[in-house]
């Protein structure tokens, strides 16, 4: 059994949210529709719903993060849960045993949900296998493997601008090799049936056999952007870069950086996305990042509603009628 299996119960409902792989269109649409209902909450006088009142959410962050951590915190708070965030500095390799010890200790504090960010692929899945059955586990990014809530907030943002997925051409540009965001987004867009999905990157920043994920490969930016409805720029993962995969950042920008001139190859109403934090002048020019086609800050806002939806769905699926035990 892998992550795709353990996140579903026998009726196929989401108990954890670990990966987009193995989910159906119905799962994604349920999350997107629920998020749509939650989106307006931020514009009300009281930006809070009572849904998770009395629940405790623990953010377990073994890897630094600002945006993801704060939006998970806000999402939990807007659902009236109590939130505890632990930033756990770790040595390079976390042994299974010490992770389990951490887990058991926090479990003993009677919590209901773990949100896990870890530099090691499979960490959230490992935790999901070992937690008590009433606890839901959400993957907030594991190694190079997956960042499923980011993928869902990306498709939510796309749907708000361009709701007809089967007619869309999407280009994902940049460091695909180190990007868990790209992996999860590719799975999500294929499940939703986009017409054409391309990755645009130099050979050195593409994983081996990337075509098997269901994408077309382009090595040249203008060609990759042609007629695109959606352009997703990825952060150049300098901190993950080992060895000489790139000649220099300047050269990368010259070949793969998104500028206004290059964006002209895409459709005139194309939207530009980026999971953040952006490297201005490395993968994207400031005039594009701050320009009228950019929806980068909308992605941040949408991340709250999408995470609220995933939290309420997974914890709701742990619900048990009184008397049926756990």
């Amino acid at each position, binding site marked *: 059994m892998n992550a795709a299996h353990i996140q579903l119960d026998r009726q196929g409902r989401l108990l954890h949210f670990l990966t987009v792989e193995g989910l159906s269109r119905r799962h994604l649409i349920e999350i997107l529709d629920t998020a749509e209902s939650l*989106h307006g909450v931020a514009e009300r006088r009281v930006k809070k719903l009572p849904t998770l009142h009395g629940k405790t959410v623990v953010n377990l962050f073994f890897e630094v993060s600002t945006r993801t951590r704060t939006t998970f915190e806000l999402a939990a708070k807007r659902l009236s849960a109590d939130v505890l965030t632990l930033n756990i500095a770790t040595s390079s390799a976390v042994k299974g045993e010490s992770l389990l010890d951490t887990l058991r200790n926090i479990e003993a504090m009677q919590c209901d949900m773990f949100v896990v960010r870890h530099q090691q692929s499979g960490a959230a899945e490992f935790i999901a296998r070992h937690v008590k059955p009433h606890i839901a586990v959400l993957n907030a990014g594991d190694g190079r493997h997956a960042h499923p809530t980011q993928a869902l907030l990306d498709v939510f943002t796309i749907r708000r601008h361009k709701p007809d997925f089967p007619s869309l051409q999407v280009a994902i540009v940049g460091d695909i090799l180190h990007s868990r965001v790209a992996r999860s987004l590719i799975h999500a867009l294929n499940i939703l049936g986009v017409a054409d999905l391309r990755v645009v990157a130099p050979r050195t920043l593409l994983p081996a056999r990337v075509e098997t994920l269901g994408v077309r490969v382009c090595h040249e930016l203008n060609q990759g952007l042609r007629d695109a409805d959606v352009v997703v720029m990825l952060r150049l993962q300098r901190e993950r870069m080992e060895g000489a995969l790139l000649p220099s950042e300047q050269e990368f920008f010259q070949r793969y950086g998104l500028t206004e001139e290059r964006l002209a190859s895409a459709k005139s109403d194309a939207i530009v996305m980026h999971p953040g934090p952006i490297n201005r002048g490395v993968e994207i020019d400031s005039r594009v990042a701050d320009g009228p086609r950019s929806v980068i800050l909308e992605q941040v806002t949408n991340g709250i509603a999408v995470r609220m939806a995933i939290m309420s769905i997974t914890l709701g699926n742990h619900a048990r009628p009184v008397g049926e035990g756990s």
Partner: protein
Amino acid sequence: MRDAEFLIEVMAGQLQDLLDRRGIAEPALVGVHTGGVWVAERLRQRLGIATPLGLLDISFYRDDFSRIGVNPQVRPSELPFDVDDRHLVLIDDVLQTGRTIRAALNELFDYGRPASVLLAALVDRGGRELPIEANVIGTRLKLPAGQQIQLTGPDPLQLSIQAAP
């Protein structure tokens, strides 16, 4: 049992009288998803109220989340007017335990502080579990516990009684 359109006619008359007695000239109507929205839209047209309809989906306010989780068919709530100091009429299709109305009142107050809230229901089938009563009722109906009454719509609006699932 009378048909739904007739009952809405009855409600419209009662509601107009009540609004006149209270001196409320331009109330805002708020329907509870889904049936309550259909009834509310009919009442808004009959009463010639210009303020757009408010829509409330109380899924996130239910008191049984820990038993049944989130309703997968949840829809956005939308109150396209300022709730502060406004006279509101909350409208649902079937009033029974009162739990839906408890949830709806809580949600309304997260939008602001209304001047007053009236409650109108198409059918009151009794069986209250909370201290909540409607100001305007289309009809009262006594039903055995094993049966449920359902409104289908929006066009035509029809009430039907069937065995509870």
